[in-house]
């Protein structure tokens, strides 16, 4: 049921680490001695069976794997029925950034907690509906800059890559010879320095 312990997309991925840090509700199936501090609202030393907590996803994944289950994961509220209905109605109107910064990354873990596959379907539905919007944005970025703030991390990356590619194509079409430019890090470094100098 759960994905094996391999890391997606790789062990060092910053985004994956941050996505697995998100809190997920779960219920303990066993007594866990000396882990009372996981539950900030209780002062007992041991964690009792049946305690419901919100724990980081990496801990939940580990506890719900293997032969002996320590805890049973539940769906975070943004993947539950009510929110799924909102997404089904019109995914393009939603501020996904407010739902969760890592909506898709988190979702791809969460979908294994849902046996009926509803979460799986809603992730796919959300992405395919919103993809046209992102593509449109990337090609005409000047239209409305605030709309960018409604994208989650994955979408934002897609937007940025698409936008850069479009810009490159435009300069190539317009002036064929590409001028030599300062490296992007150098450029940013200089801009930041200028800001600092102004502050002083």
């Amino acid at each position, binding site marked *: 049921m759960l994905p094996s312990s391999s*890391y997606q997309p790789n*062990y*060092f*991925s*910053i*985004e994956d*680490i*941050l996505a697995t*840090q998100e809190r997920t509700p779960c219920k303990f199936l*066993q*007594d*866990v*001695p*000396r*882990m009372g501090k*996981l539950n900030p609202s209780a002062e007992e030393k041991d964690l009792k069976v049946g305690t419901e907590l919100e724990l*980081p996803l*990496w*801990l939940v994944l*580990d*506890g719900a794997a*293997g032969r*002996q289950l*320590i805890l049973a994961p539940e769906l975070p509220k943004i993947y539950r029925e009510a929110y799924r209905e909102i997404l089904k109605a019109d995914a393009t109107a939603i501020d996904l950034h407010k739902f969760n910064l890592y909506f898709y990354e988190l979702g791809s873990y969460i979908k294994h907690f849902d046996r009926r596959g509803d979460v799986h379907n809603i992730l796919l539905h959300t992405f395919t509906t919103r993809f046209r919007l992102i593509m449109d944005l990337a090609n005409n970025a000047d239209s409305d800059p605030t709309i960018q703030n409604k994208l989650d991390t994955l979408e934002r990356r897609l937007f940025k890559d698409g936008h850069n590619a479009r810009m490159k194509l435009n300069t190539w079409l317009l*002036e064929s*010879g*590409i*001028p*030599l*430019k*300062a*490296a*992007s*890090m*150098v*450029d*940013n*470094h*200089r801009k*930041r*320095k200028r800001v600092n100098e102004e502050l002083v």
Partner: protein
Amino acid sequence: MFAEKACSLIKELSRCEEGLPPYNIELVKEVCTEIKQLHEQNKEDGAIVANESEIAGNVNPLYPTLRIGSAAVKRNIRCLLAYHYNRLRTLRTMRWQFGSILPPDIKTNLSSDEIDWFSKYSSCLGKYMRSIGEDGLNLCLDLRPPKSLYIEVKCLIDYGKFELSDGTVLLLKKDSRHYLPRSECEELITQGVFHHIV
């Protein structure tokens, strides 16, 4: 909560996309202590579980505690490794963009090991570039196909003296314009000294 500190290291990194935050030696040390403590605790629990399960034959009540403890250690190590690895990757990109000498304000953000690594990487790269072909090949040049041998550039900062490969010495002042062989000034453009005028 476990691994909270380790995760804040990663958050620091993710906040500056291009560039490096100061190396957070204190937090790294704290994470190391947390790992050590957890490891000690796990070793004790592990010994108990191993001993008792032989006698009783059924599942030990400490087993879940041990599982959670070891998950926390794994998580901490992952964050710590990812922190260092991603910093090195940025540093490597910096070698290609800034050249072999880093601006001083970036250098202050590095740990001494990272400075070491940078100079080693730099010299490895230099050695490799000298070894290509008969008299070496500068891989930092001609990243884009050249259209002409000479280009016009404007100097953006007071750089000082600059010697061309034929021996002529130029004085590069702010806002001065030059008409130079492309191969001579490409690196200075990448480093932000020149601006290419089309």
